[in-house]
């Protein structure tokens, strides 16, 4: 009699809440990497115990097991992202296999801590191991469910049941109270707020504290310290540098001497250097891009100084600005635009597609999808980091999280969307009715905005893309001055988002559509009711159309007459709608043009990357 086989699903967390608790880019990157490695450890354990892996694809496990992204090791050497859910077929005892995977997950976490613990021993307060170990022991939320396969449609039925069981099981997030209590008065982690800090109170200025960029009043629990000190600090590219990537690379081509002087000045002052030899755009200026923002120089110098009084530090910062920064700003002619895009992407209709594949193709069909997703995540890394001067935080399964400079962001989003469909197509052909697509959200915020807020913007934008019918791009713009602007559009629209924004940017940069007219249209439309009564709807629509035509065609004082029509600005359908729709269309148009204006301003006079270019 054959041994009963089971469908086993494992899930590990927490994910979103843990990743978002980040102050430095290294917290974000390493936190994400850590979870990925925990998933990988579970998958490896399943494979070693003879389980038949489905997600992730077994070949995906063949990447190296050591160290996260290290530029000096070359791009091919870097491990891939693993989703936090693992699926396998187990023949034998599924419970013991699941328990072994749980042990492997915990071991992966503890191994990472052991490295950091050794490296940071001098930073820990006496006795911290007691509560640090408890924090690590209780951190992982591990859940598993398994169901036997029976009959013809055994895999599909069992998988559906196992997924449901797992979701139900996860409704109970068990926890225990803290038992290892630190001394009274111990502060809580600055990232978490609940777990006590493991760091010493009295700190020297400089040394290891400076290397890890731990602030004088910053507190980190074991997980926070693990994020901060894990990996090689030099591999993490600061977010300001990503936001200014296009500006810096243009400077490296057009004004080599001035940029070289700036680099030398940064080296002389021993500023923290980023070591990513694999990324040419990082090497254009391998330091924190904050030094290009005059208002940030003093705080930067205060952080990097080994001591000394504030006046000296201020004088030093001022001298640096005059001698090293200003000459470059002068020759560039355009100031760095200090915004960055947080890109969040997620597959659409994946659940439904996997269900259909399970019933009509079974395990093999799912394997093909796993392989396709692995290929997609590999290409996503190339797209983001090599083609579009961004940094990938995570790409696993159908999820992508990255930071990109605004001028490249929209084209990068479209290329990711195309790559997703291209990789998935062969795996679903002929079986899935509605092919999965990729919705991409771009949250654009100031480079000095907190990472949590930037991530929030990205997630909100991704949600807006889903709400826009999926297979869409959404851009949420949060500038320091002015309210947030959101614009979403389907990739399948007759004039798809990149083309639409390009037309708007061309109108704006040529001066044919002055920004004042956009604001005027917005102010005018706001004076009308959004939810106009049906009896007045058509009249209101008529007035709105006439008013917009008048504003667009009016000659601006001091400008050459160059009227634009409703068609030119993408409002051709305005005259065919009722009052309510016309009102909504105008609000949407204003948001779109203001988004386009930001993108145009961010990329003005710079060398931009285009889709398909290497």
């Amino acid at each position, binding site marked *: 009699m054959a041994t009963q086989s089971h469908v086993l699903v494992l899930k590990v967390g927490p994910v979103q809440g843990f990743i978002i608790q980040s102050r430095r880019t290294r917290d974000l990157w390493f936190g994400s990497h850590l979870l990925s490695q925990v998933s990988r450890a579970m998958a490896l354990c399943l494979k070693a115990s003879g389980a038949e892996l489905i997600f992730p694809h077994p070949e995906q496990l063949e990447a190296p097991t050591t160290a996260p992204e290290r530029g000096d090791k070359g791009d091919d050497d870097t491990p891939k992202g693993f989703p936090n859910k693992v699926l396998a077929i187990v023949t034998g005892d599924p419970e013991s296999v*699941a328990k072994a995977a749980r042990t492997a997950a915990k071991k992966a976490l503890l191994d990472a801590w052991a490295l950091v613990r050794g490296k940071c021993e001098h930073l820990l307060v006496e006795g911290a191991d007691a509560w640090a170990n408890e924090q690590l022991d209780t951190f992982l939320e591990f859940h598993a469910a398994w*169901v036997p396969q029976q009959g013809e449609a055994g895999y599909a039925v069992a998988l559906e049941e196992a997924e449901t069981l797992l979701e139900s*099981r996860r409704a109970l997030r068990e*926890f225990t109270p803290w038992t290892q209590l630190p001394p009274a008065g111990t502060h*809580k982690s600055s990232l978490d707020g609940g777990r006590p800090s493991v760091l010493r109170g009295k700190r020297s200025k400089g040394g290891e504290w400076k290397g890890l960029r731990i602030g004088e009043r910053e507190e980190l629990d074991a997980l926070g310290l693990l994020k901060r000190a894990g990996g090689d600090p030099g591999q993490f590219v600061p977010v300001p540098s990503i936001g200014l990537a296009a500006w810096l690379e243009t400077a490296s081509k057009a004004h080599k001497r001035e940029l070289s002087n700036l680099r030398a000045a940064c080296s002389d002052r021993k500023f923290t250097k980023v070591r990513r030899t694999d990324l040419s755009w990082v090497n254009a200026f391998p330091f924190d891009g904050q030094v290009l923002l005059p208002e940030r120089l003093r705080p930067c110098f205060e952080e990097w100084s080994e001591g000394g009084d504030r006046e000296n530090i201020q004088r030093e910062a001022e001298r640096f600005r005059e001698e090293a920064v200003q000459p470059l700003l002068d020759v560039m002619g355009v100031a760095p635009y200090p915004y960055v895009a947080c890109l969040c992407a997620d597959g659409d209709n994946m659940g439904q597609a996997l269900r259909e594949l399970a019933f009509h193709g079974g395990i093999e069909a799912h394997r093909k999808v796993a392989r396709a997703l692995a290929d997609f995540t590999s290409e996503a890394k190339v797209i983001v980091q090599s083609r579009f001067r961004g940094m990938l935080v995570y790409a696993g399964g159908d999820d992508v999280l990255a930071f990109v400079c605004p001028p490249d962001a929209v084209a990068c989003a479209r290329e990711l969307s195309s790559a997703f469909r291209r990789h998935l197509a062969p795996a679903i052909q002929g079986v899935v009715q509605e092919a999965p697509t990729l919705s991409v959200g771009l949250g654009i915020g100031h480079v000095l905005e907190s990472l949590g807020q930037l991530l929030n913007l990205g997630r909100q934008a991704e949600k807006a893309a889903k709400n826009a019918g999926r297979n869409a791009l959404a851009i949420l713009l949060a500038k320091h001055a002015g309210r947030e602007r959101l614009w979403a559009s389907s990739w399948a629209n007759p004039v798809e988002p990149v083309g639409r924004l390009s037309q708007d940017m061309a109108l704006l940069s040529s001066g044919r559509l002055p920004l004042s007219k956009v604001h005027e249209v917005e102010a005018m439309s706001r004076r009308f009711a959004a939810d106009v009564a049906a009896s007045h709807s058509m009249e209101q629509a008529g007035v709105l159309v006439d008013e917009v035509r008048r504003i667009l065609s009016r000659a601006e004082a001091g400008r050459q007459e160059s009227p634009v029509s409703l068609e030119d600005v993408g409002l051709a359908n305005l005259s065919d709608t009722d009052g309510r729709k016309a009102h909504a269309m105008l609000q949407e148009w204003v948001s779109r043009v203001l988004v386009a204006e930001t993108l145009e301003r961010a990329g003005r006079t710079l060398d931009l990357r285009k889709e398909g270019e290497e």
Partner: protein
Amino acid sequence: MSQDCFVLLPRDGLSVKDGRGWYTSEVGRGHSHPWPLPTTVRGALRAAWGQDLMTTQPGVRMTPAEWEQRSAGVKLTRFVALRRFFAESPFELAHRMWPFPADAVLVGAEKGPVGRVEHLLPHRPAAGRSASTLGPDEDSAREGLWHPRRVSRGKPSTAPRFWSEAEMVCWLLGHDVAVPQELSPEQRTDLHVSIDPSRQTAEDSMLHSRQVVELLRLEREGEKAPRAVEWALGLCCEQPERDAVRGFPSGVLGLGGRRRLTDVERVTPDLFACPPEFKPKASKGLRLVLATPACFARGWLPDGFARDAGLYVGSLPKVAGPVVLRAALVPRAQDVSAWDMVKKEPRQTRRWVPAGAVYFFEKQRGDDFTAEELRALWLASWGGGHEEALGQVLPGVWTPPPASGA
């Protein structure tokens, strides 16, 4: 024992900082809990009580240590959220708002965003161990709990923080509820600057901000015009027996970060009573929804429950005989890190079961939960922290699925 019942009406928003200092993931930003914790409110009442005592009783002066000792008798016995149209009428039962229960899930419709509220009902496990689960550690009784599941597929929508009295009563009686309005207090961010007195200008790098929960705001229900609504905290409070202050609290109260001004409106204990519409019939199963966070000695597992032949068996307040815990829907722990005002240092973190968690029970002997037992459980206290109104429950009926072959 004197009992003072009143409503706190924060007029300037509330900032109840969590355990992160100012040097957080966002330097110079204070993060606020989305809704004030009972422990914060009790702390403010203890401070107000001390001030009232010293004001009304000549010659009484307390050092911080004395204050801490004597004010320990100030107890919070009821803590409910309230919402009414601005200055509409005195607060009444219909204004109560309850935490969205974990056994309700908002699911999308086949087309479009309009969804429905679905019950998560525990399923009796199939005989044998054909399908099973595993958690982060070893506990066969926990893995033997029944799993609440929904019928629909797809991703559930984000639930609102609160729903209304009418919706909650309906839900507790086991009836269907329409999709609730998205009515929740929102957070805003207040920005602060430090002024350099010598230059009379803002100091560089001293900009800081804090999250504030806005409780007096405009809300729009559907297509209707927006109306001003006020959110408030309904409280019952006991004073120390020997040191009771008449008319407590007097005047406005300082609450939360920066002691923001909070108006006080008197109410009667009826505001916390079991509603007359809640007329449950005797039921084989009982659901307990946490109206306030609960503090259990073993974390998620309720006090008084122990493993017994692969089950969790224990007792409940106001309920006769032992009961069996059948299922538990518990979100992640709520970590509470309060500040010791006397020692001027952080207190140890406590871990609470968040409000909205739901536990399902059957009586061990198979008896029904009587209508009287169900009504008696209305806002009964469960677990520790009674002096902070922790662990107050709302009872709901539940029909356990029949055993196989029954």
